[in-house]
C-alpha cells in the first residue's frame, strides 16, 4: 500500500516536472460546445480567452452558469483572431472555414472529433489536458469520473430493458455513439440499432409504437419556443406511448458532451432502467 503511494507520488512529481517544462496555453479559445465543457473542467479560468456561444445555453451546456463569466464567440475567423489566441479548440464538424483560415495564419488549432464512446471522451480529456498543459488535472478528472462510475451499480435483472431515445422532431440516436455507450453502461439496450437505424435518424411514431420499447427517453429542449417538434409531442399516439411505459425527460446537457458529469448521466439512465425493471417485476415482458 505504502509502496503504491510512493509510486503514485513519484509519477505525479514527474508529471508536474514535465508540465513546468511545457508552457501552458494562456489564451485559449473554444469554438465547440464539447471543448467548452472540457476546458471549464480543466483550464485555469484566466487562461480561457473565449468559449463558444452555445456554452451559455442552459439546455445544452452542463457548465452554462460558469460559462456566463467568459466572453463567447460565434466562430468567425475575425472575432477569433482579435482575441490573439495561442490555442484554438474546434470540433471537426463545424466552423471548417474558420479552422482552415486559422491554420493558414499559423494559429495552433486542436480539432476534436465527435466522441462516440466513453473511451473517446477519456482520450479527448487527456488530449486537451496535454495540449493546454493541464495533464495532471486531466488524470485527476478521469480518476474522479471512474470512481463515480464504479460507485454506481447498474441494475441487474434477468433481462435488459430496451430504451427508445425520442428527441424533438422524432430524431433518435443509434450506434456507435456516446449516448448508445451510456445506455449500455446503465444496463439498457438502445432501440435504434435494433430496428435497423444505424447511426440514428428519424423514428416515425408508427415505428416507435410498433417497437414497444420498455422505457422512453425524451429530451425537452427549449420547451417554450413554438416548433413542429413541440407540436409533435401533443400527438395522441405519442401521448399514448408515453402513458404506457416509464418515460423520462433526459436533460440534453447531461449526455451530448463528455465531462465528469457523465457519471450523472449514467446514474440518471440507471434510474430509468430500474423503473422499467420495476414495472415488469424483473421479468422479461
Amino acid at each position, binding site marked *: 500500500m505504502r509502496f503504491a503511494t510512493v509510486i503514485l507520488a513519484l509519477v505525479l512529481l514527474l508529471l508536474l516536472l514535465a508540465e513546468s517544462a511545457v508552457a501552458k496555453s494562456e489564451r485559449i479559445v473554444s469554438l465547440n460546445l464539447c471543448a467548452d465543457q472540457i476546458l471549464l473542467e480543466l483550464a485555469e479560468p484566466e487562461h480561457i480567452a473565449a468559449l463558444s456561444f452555445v456554452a451559455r445555453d442552459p439546455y445544452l451546456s452542463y457548465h452554462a452558469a460558469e460559462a456566463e463569466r467568459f466572453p463567447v464567440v460565434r466562430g468567425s475567423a475575425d472575432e477569433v483572431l482579435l482575441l490573439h489566441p495561442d490555442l484554438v479548440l474546434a470540433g471537426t464538424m463545424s466552423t471548417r472555414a474558420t479552422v482552415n483560415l486559422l491554420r493558414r495564419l499559423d494559429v495552433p488549432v486542436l480539432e476534436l472529433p465527435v466522441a462516440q464512446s466513453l473511451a473517446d471522451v477519456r482520450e479527448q480529456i487527456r488530449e486537451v489536458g496535454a495540449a493546454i498543459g493541464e495533464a495532471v488535472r486531466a488524470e485527476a478528472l478521469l480518476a474522479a469520473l471512474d470512481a463515480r462510475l464504479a460507485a454506481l451499480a447498474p441494475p441487474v435483472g434477468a433481462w435488459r430493458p430496451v430504451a427508445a431515445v425520442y428527441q424533438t422532431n422524432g430524431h433518435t440516436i443509434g450506434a456507435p455513439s456516446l449516448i448508445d455507450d451510456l445506455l449500455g453502461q446503465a444496463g439498457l439496450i438502445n432501440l435504434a440499432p435494433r430496428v435497423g437505424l444505424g447511426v440514428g435518424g*428519424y423514428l*416515425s411514431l408508427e415505428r416507435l409504437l*410498433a417497437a414497444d420499447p420498455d422505457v422512453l427517453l425524451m429530451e425537452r429542449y427549449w420547451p417554450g419556443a413554438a*416548433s*413542429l*417538434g413541440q407540436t409533435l409531442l*401533443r400527438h395522441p399516439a405519442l401521448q399514448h406511448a408515453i402513458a404506457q411505459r416509464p418515460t423520462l425527460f433526459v436533460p440534453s446537457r447531461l449526455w451530448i458532451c463528455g465531462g465528469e458529469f457523465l457519471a450523472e448521466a449514467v446514474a440518471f439512465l440507471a434510474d430509468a432502467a430500474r423503473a422499467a425493471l420495476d414495472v415488469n417485476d424483473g421479468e422479461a415482458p
Partner: protein
Amino acid sequence: MSGPAASASGRLAGRSDGWLFAGLSLLVLVLFLLSLGVGRAPIPLIESYGHLFADNGSVLALILQEIRLPRAILATMIGATLGLAGAALQGLLRNPLAEPSLIGVSGSAALGAVVMFYFGFAAAFPLALPLGGMAGALVSVVLIHLLAGRGSSGLSLILAGIAINSLAAALTSLALSLAPNPYAAMEILFWLLGSLADRSFEHVQLAAPFMVVGWILLAGLGRPLEALSLGEETARTLGVDLKRLRLRLVLGVALAVGAAVSVAGSIGFIGLVVPHILRPLVGHRPGVLLPASALGGASLTLAADIAVRLVSTGPELRLGVFTALVGAPFFLWLVVKVRREVL
C-alpha cells in the same frame, strides 16, 4: 348549338362523364384504403382494416386510428384542394401554366403559416395557423391577378410567379432565422417541401373546415369559367359577372390552399399535372374539369404519399420532393408544348 346533334353529343358526354367520375372516385377509394395499409409498422394489409375499427386501445388500433387515418384524410383533402385550385386558376387566368405552387400561392401561404407558428401566435390561438396560411395565400393570389391577369402571356405569369415565390421563400427563411427556436433551420424543409408524416387529427380539424368552404366557393364556378374560356366579352354577353367570378375564385383558392399548406407545407405540381391529364378526357369543359381535378388531385396525392413511404428506407422522403420529381419534367414538357402552340 341546337338540334338533335347537340343533344346527342351532350348525352354522350354525360354518359362518359359518369364513367369518368365513377372511375376517379373508385381510384380515390382504392388509394385511400391502400394508404391506410402502408407504413413502417409491419401489419398485413387486410388485417390492418380490422384495427381501424377496433375499440381495444391496442397499439395496432392506435397506429391505424391516430396515425394512418388522419394522414390518409389529409392526403385526400389536400390533394383535392390542389387539383381543384389548379384547374380553377388555369380557367381564371386562361393559362395552362397556372398552379398554386408555381405562381407562389403555396409559398406565400407557407410564409403566413410560418409567421403565425414560430412567433407563438398559433400556440396561443390554434386557428391563427390556418388563418395565417390563408392570409398569405390571399395576398399572393391578388398580386398574381394584378400582375398577370386579363389574358396576359404565359411568360408574364411565370415571371410574376417566380418573383412572388422568391420573395415568399426569402421572407420565410428570414422569419425562421428570427424566430426564437433552435429547430427552425431544420424545420424549414417541412414548409418548403411539404410532408404528411406524423400529422394528427388536430391538423385535420384545423384545416378541413376552411378547405371545405374553399371547395364550396369554387364548386359553382364551372359554368362562368366555361363562358370565360370564350373570352371576357363573350362571357359578359352571356351574363357572367366577371368581378364576382374573380372575387369568389380568389377567395376560394386562398381559403383552400392556405389551409392545406398551413398543416402540410407546400406540396408542388399536383394542380399542374392533374388538370392537364384530365383535360383531354373532359373535352375542355371547366364545369366538368373542376370536380374531376379535385378527384384526380386526391388520387395523385394519395399515390405520392404511399410512394414516399414505400421507397424510403432511411428518413422518410418529403412528399414535395416526390411530387416535384414527377411534376417538374411534366412542367418542362408543358412549357415546350405551350411555346410551340403560341409561336
